[in-house]
């Protein structure tokens, strides 16, 4: 424990628990002339320079913040006009940027022998920034907690319950962090343990890191890296995976998890599964909690899954599409692509609609994740 002690931290967490989980709330319904929401993403330009960009409903550029290296995920603060953009793993920075003033609020650097691992989130009360990290040199997954009110000072850190933690979520009760432990030990970006990797989904108590629940895939599926996920209003976690085994194997790439139950792998029809090319990029659940969207950029697909039925639903083509956000309308998503395109997706109707962006945005390769921010 660094800075404030564990007891103080636990007391402060009670404030977090009393606040409803805003993170799971989707953006407002699209109204073409209302500036109701913003889209934030990491992006890379043709000169291989890296940016945090924010655009509005009309595709106008609202923020362009230069980054020191390629980034991965963007997390919105629940009530400040801030976003935290997390460096790609192994990451050396998290930039917290004020999108009203365009100012860098804080460049957070990892502690000694730590690197950021691509994802972070704010607690619903906005007080804590919680991130996945990797401890060097052993390569153990860590969860770090920083205090936004005290210059993002590190206040707690505990094991993620596995190797290679990547995306993380908060439980609706707010007392647990849910971690995708990808299972892959890396040196730089080199994967070194593909034969023995053991991915898991772990539920950890926020006030100390105790594992309250942890699930592993079947032994024959141990090379399915659990990397990205989202949580529905009823607590179902939709998981997007990447298969590190033989490319010719037929493995499920999507799974669901409900508390107290084993992980449930879902399979797409053969042709779709093959097209997904063993690789999913991100997962988001719609506002109704009934449909999960999982991107498969190597297959140029966004796939959709019926959560209640535990079944594949449909897919839409989006070339190099990876980032996904849900809108406030049930069954409706927004997707961004490495080709600079942004689309509204209507999977029930089999439709997509291109959102025209400012040319400074459409020239960019939009990176892995898309963050939609409500603007009131």
């Amino acid at each position, binding site marked *: 424990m660094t800075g404030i002690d564990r007891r103080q931290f636990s007391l402060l967490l009670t404030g977090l628990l009393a606040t409803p989980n805003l993170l799971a709330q989707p953006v407002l319904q699209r109204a*073409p*002339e209302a500036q109701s929401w913003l889209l934030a993403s990491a992006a*890379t*330009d*043709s*000169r*291989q*320079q890296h940016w945090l960009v924010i655009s509005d409903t*009309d595709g*106008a550029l609202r923020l362009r913040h*230069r980054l020191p290296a390629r980034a*991965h995920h963007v997390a919105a603060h629940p009530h400040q006009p801030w976003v935290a953009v997390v460096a*790609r*793993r192994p990451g050396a920075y998290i930039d917290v940027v004020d999108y009203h003033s365009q100012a860098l609020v804080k460049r957070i650097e990892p502690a000694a022998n730590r690197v950021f691992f*691509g994802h972070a989130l704010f607690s619903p009360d906005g007080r804590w920034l919680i991130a996945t990290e990797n401890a060097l040199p052993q390569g153990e997954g860590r969860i770090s907690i920083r205090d936004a009110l005290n210059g993002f000072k590190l206040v707690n850190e505990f094991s993620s319950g596995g190797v290679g933690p*990547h995306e993380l979520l908060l439980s609706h009760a707010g007392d647990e962090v849910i971690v995708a432990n990808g299972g892959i030990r890396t040196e730089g970006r080199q994967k070194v343990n593909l034969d023995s990797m053991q991915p898991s989904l772990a539920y950890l108590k926020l006030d100390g890191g105790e594992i309250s629940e942890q699930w592993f895939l079947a032994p024959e599926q141990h090379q399915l890296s659990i*990397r990205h996920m989202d949580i529905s209003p009823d607590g179902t976690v939709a998981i997007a995976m990447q298969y590190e085994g033989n490319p010719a194997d037929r493995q499920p790439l999507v799974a669901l998890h409900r508390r107290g139950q084993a992980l449930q792998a879902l399979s797409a029809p053969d042709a779709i599964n093959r097209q997904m090319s063993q*690789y999913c*990029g991100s997962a988001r659940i719609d506002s109704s909690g009934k449909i999960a969207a999982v991107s498969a*950029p*190597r297959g*140029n697909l966004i796939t959709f899954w019926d959560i209640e039925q535990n079944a594949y639903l449909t897919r839409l*083509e989006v*070339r*190099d*599409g*990876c980032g996904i956000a849900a809108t406030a309308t049930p069954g409706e998503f927004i997707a961004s*692509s*490495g*080709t*600079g*395109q942004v689309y509204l997706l209507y999977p029930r109707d*089999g*439709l*997509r*609609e*291109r959102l*025209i962006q*400012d*040319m*400074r945005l*459409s*020239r960019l*390769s939009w*990176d*892995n994740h898309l963050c939609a921010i409500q603007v009131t």
Partner: protein
Amino acid sequence: MHNLTRLGQLLASSGVLLAGITQAAPVIDWDAFNGSAISQHVQPRYQQLAQQSQTLAETTAHWCQARNSDDFADVQHAFENSLQAWQGIQHVQFGPVQLLMRNYDIQFWPDRKGIIGRQLNDALQGPTAGTYDAEFFRHASVSIKGFPALERLFYDKGALQTLQQQPNACALASAISATLAKTAQALYSEWQTQSISTQEGTDDDEAAPSDLPDLSLDLLRSLVQSIDVIRDGKLLNVLGKDQASARLKRAENWRSGQSLRSIATNLEALQELYSGGGVNLDLILREQGATAEADEIGALFSQARSQLEGMPDDFAPALQNASTYAQLRAVSVTLKALDEALYNAMPSINAQLGFNSRDGD
């Protein structure tokens, strides 16, 4: 025999290697590509849009004086010419058209939530009805500044009677077409007066320029991505899963019966961007040794366009006939192949249009 075969293979492969060394691909002159594309493709097409839109504005204003049923076809004809001029440059979604959101001003589509209809009703019957001056358009919704709004006024059921009997309707149609003409003229002027370097210059970064200028990348995107937009947004969304589930009202320009004509115009324009003018992508690919790729792209453009030949301008009759429906399916298959062929050709000119699929996390 076996050894001779091996020897032959070795010679053949060394020949390939030698050819690779002795015929190194020339450096691509992207400035020449940009210059050709702008002067021989972009500017003339904006000029055409400006001229046709001006004709439409004049024809509408003139017709509204007498509102004679016999002459109404002149208005529709002018509208269709102007619309097709837009379809001929619609793929350029960068540069001046993006300033002040003029791309949406010209064409707010698709309109899944029926915004245009509501806004038109407000404009015709609301508190500001009848006054359609510059101030009105400054505050007006983007949805009623362009072609889709005019299309409703000129082609909706009972359009002629409405225009004849409701003075506001004709006044609004005249005002929208005049606004459209003004916008088109402004776009043409801006493409003429802005130098190529200005067109590029929104990046204020200190870093070294890339090998591929932004303007070239914009032009390549306009070409490559538009094929996907046509196939997905203009064809497959309408065709549905089968003929029984086809949905005409998802088509662009269905009211004016111009849907398929618009697609044909799009493809003609894109093929011109690909292989027309002086220094074009077709030529660059060939200079870089990607002859097979260039041949394939050219053939697929021609195939898609010939598959559309003989089709009606209007989507409606084509959807009702099994044979034309199947033919449109075939067009979508060709466009899929064309989209793939264009993407596959990009690495040979060091143009990277995506990266999540190559290096994700």
